[in-house]
């Protein structure tokens, strides 16, 4: 019950972690099933339709329901601590964002049990995703489930922006802010400007499918290429929504374990902003083969390649930070160091793909699959592992086992390269993406076998990580406030796990790497910026949960509003939007309750603070 009503950002972080982890597991099982189907030519483990559903759900689940929430978990766990705040700007909205994400994800996954999952790829290209080619409710689950989940993301983005702008501790100027806080800030800005585009795209597709509109239906005057524009003007920034937080994590972990300040801090900030900006200008590099003009292709090719410049700056800054530091390879730093070459390889194939003429060869082959997995898995997932191992003690008060951590790292990274390195060659030899099988003796057989074995190894690495979590959770808490001993930023200046009010006294920030600065000056902790006083806390409330349930019901109701059911009553309820209305009523009712009853919150008094 606690968990349903909580508005504490640290608990919401844990909720995001469990829910994201669950979906990540589902997406992982889907990946293994895909790889099992491709282990040998002419395999008949699954049929073509199921295969389409598997790849669609794998991609969609991994991106929207797996890694994004885990990113949000880390942001929620760390950001208020790093900027010296007692809370986020809007604790209530924070909870609401989590619950809408969760119910959107549940809706999407219900499709497996309710007549077929979405089957048009995670990009849902029209007209393939129109009713003419995708007649089940699959794509409706996609449009409506993602819509609800996306709402949660948008809420989270606005909340982090407001939090970082207004809640920083005294002295924490923007140019003293830790890199992870910076990348969270920029990521949230990208979310704010990219997600509304996909919101519209999903609405239009929903209208096409459920209300018979003609946006993407050529026969009615609509344009399928329009979908691609809308999708990618969201979709390309989306990949930066994923990777920038990973950059932030790497920029925290490396200085800590190299015991040196981050090389080129201000150029890192500048590069982050530049990447975000360019990220919005390059979407059509996903559409080189749709027949835009050669001029358009050339412009988008060049602007894409420009992104390599700020990215290169980042890579060199990390290397220079490691260079000459007294480097300690604890698990977080293993992942962070493994990230650098792996991500760089993904970047190189990215520049190759950005060359429009070459892309006519690479397009929709396994070369593309290899490229984006190098970036998303070799980059982002490695970054997340680094971050999870690094902040685990802060989140749970317990150190993860170093031995098991190293096992995780080595099985994961070896499995990863086995899986995806060979896919570059499969692609160059012409193996198409999204086909459910291939003919024997095209030189595809061995490499596919290798790839599947690698996937199994990655799965094993995940299991080691889960075992680590399980074993650790049964031990008593053992982490001190600064368990890595070389913590530089504010979150390490308070106990682990942090008390619900975070800081007994708001700290005074006197420079970059605020905590490190105090430590080198010989101080034990931060200098407080205020006397001990009573601390105001927001109260727990079930309303965010109720609101999300309402939206969930409304979504289901709308989805089936054109169906015939065997029971006349059920048909009546759905066809007249009674169910939809009921769902909306629940949501608006909860909003009304929220506005009628003032929630003054409660206070933690100084005596209580001292008592601990």
């Amino acid at each position, binding site marked *: 019950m606690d968990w349903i009503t909580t508005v504490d950002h640290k608990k919401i972080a844990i909720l995001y972690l469990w829910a994201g982890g669950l979906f990540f597991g589902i997406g992982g099982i889907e990946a293994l099933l895909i790889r099992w189907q491709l282990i040998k030519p002419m395999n008949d483990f699954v049929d073509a339709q199921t295969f389409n559903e598997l790849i669609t759900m794998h991609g969609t689940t991994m991106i929207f329901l797996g890694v994004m929430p885990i990113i949000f978990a880390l942001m929620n766990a760390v950001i208020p601590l790093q900027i010296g705040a007692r*809370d986020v700007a809007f604790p209530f909205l924070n909870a609401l964002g989590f619950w809408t994400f969760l119910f959107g994800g549940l809706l999407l996954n219900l499709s497996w049990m309710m007549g077929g999952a979405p089957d048009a790829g995670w990009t849902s290209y029209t007209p393939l995703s129109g009713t003419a080619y995708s007649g089940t409710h699959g794509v409706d689950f996609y449009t409506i489930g993602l819509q609800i989940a996306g709402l949660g993301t948008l809420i989270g983005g606005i909340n982090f*922006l407001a939090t970082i702008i207004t809640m920083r501790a005294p002295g924490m100027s923007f140019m003293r802010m830790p890199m992870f806080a910076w990348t969270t800030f920029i990521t949230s800005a990208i979310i704010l400007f990219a997600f509304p585009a996909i919101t519209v795209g999903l609405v239009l597709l929903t209208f096409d499918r459920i209300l018979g509109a*003609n*946006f993407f239906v050529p026969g009615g005057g*609509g*344009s399928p290429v*329009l979908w691609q524009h809308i999708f990618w003007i969201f979709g390309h920034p989306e990949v930066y929504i994923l990777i920038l937080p990973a950059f932030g994590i790497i920029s925290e972990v490396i200085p800590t374990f190299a015991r040196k300040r981050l090389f080129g801090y201000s150029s890192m900030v500048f590069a982050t902003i530049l990447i975000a900006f360019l990220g919005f200008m390059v979407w059509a590099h996903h559409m080189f083969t749709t027949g835009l003009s050669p001029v358009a292709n050339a412009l988008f090719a060049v602007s894409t390649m420009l992104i390599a410049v700020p990215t290169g700056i980042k890579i060199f800054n990390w290397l220079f930070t490691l260079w000459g530091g007294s480097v300690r390879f604890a698990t977080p730093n293993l992942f962070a160091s493994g990230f650098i070459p792996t991500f760089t390889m993904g970047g190189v194939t990215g520049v190759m793909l950005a060359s429009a003429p070459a892309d006519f060869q690479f397009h929709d082959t396994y070369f593309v699959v290899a490229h984006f997995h190098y970036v998303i898995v070799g980059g982002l997932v490695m970054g997340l592992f680094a971050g999870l191992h690094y902040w685990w003690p802060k989140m749970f008060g317990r150190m993860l086992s170093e031995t098991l951590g190293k096992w995780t790292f080595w099985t994961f990274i070896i499995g990863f390269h086995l899986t995806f390195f060979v896919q570059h060659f499969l692609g160059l030899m012409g193996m198409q993406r999204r086909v459910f099988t291939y003919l024997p003796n095209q030189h595809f057989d061995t490499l596919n076998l290798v790839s599947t074995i690698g996937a199994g190894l990655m799965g094993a690495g995940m299991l080691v990580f889960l075992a680590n979590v399980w074993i650790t959770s049964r031990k008593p808490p053992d982490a001190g406030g600064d368990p890595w001993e070389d913590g530089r930023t504010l979150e390490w200046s308070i106990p682990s796990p942090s008390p619900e009010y975070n800081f007994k006294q708001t700290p005074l920030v006197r420079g970059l790497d605020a905590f490190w600065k105090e430590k080198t000056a010989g101080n034990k902790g931060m200098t407080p910026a205020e006397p001990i006083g009573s601390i*105001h806390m927001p109260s727990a409330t079930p309303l965010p949960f109720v609101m999300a349930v309402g939206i969930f019901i409304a979504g289901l109701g709308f989805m089936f509003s054109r169906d015939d059911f065997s029971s006349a009553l059920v048909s009546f309820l759905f066809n007249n939007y009674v169910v939809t209305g009921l769902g909306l009523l629940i949501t608006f009712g909860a909003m009304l309750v929220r*506005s*009628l009853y003032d929630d003054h919150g409660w206070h933690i008094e100084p005596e209580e603070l001292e008592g601990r």
Partner: protein
Amino acid sequence: MTTTHAEPVHGGLAHEPEKATAEGRNKVLAFWLFLGGEAVLFGTLFATFLALRNQTNEGPAANDLFHLPLVAAATFLLLVSSLTSVFAIQAMHRNRPKLLRNWLLVTVMLGLGFLGLEIYEFSQYVRHEEFGMTTSAFSSAFYTLVGFHGAHVAFGILWISLLIGQLGYKGLTVVTAPKLYISAMYWHFIDVVWVFIFTVVYLLGKVG
């Protein structure tokens, strides 16, 4: 934080009560951000409309449909309602809750008038021109863009009405003031979007 929650300030309200508390300031800031997102939302809808506005699929085209006098009347109502919401906020800053309430009521009435005209307009198209959601890509884009705006107006009316109720029940405090202030921001935003719709959809549809 220590002082975010608030009680009515005795002996006069702060000059800008919407910014008197940290929570209020956060709300105003976050609402600006939210409007940034809304701008992208409408931008995408406008782009879609522009891409599809000539794809009439042998159904009615903009030129056959639109009656500018009706649209002009609707525009007038909405523009004036923006003005009255400014008066409302001015009344709030002068700490005159009754006047505030009255201007809000006028705003809501004007909004309802706009919505009524729009519903009348749509029903004319559907009934007499056989121009529905499914007719053409143009019709889909038209109803979606203009309808989305209409839904925003409807939501705004509902929201402000509830706030009027809350004002009666709780009075003008540093808790209610930020809500009233951001609802006015929202209302102006809707108004600005309508100016674009009037230009891009109706005027361009008549002449272009």
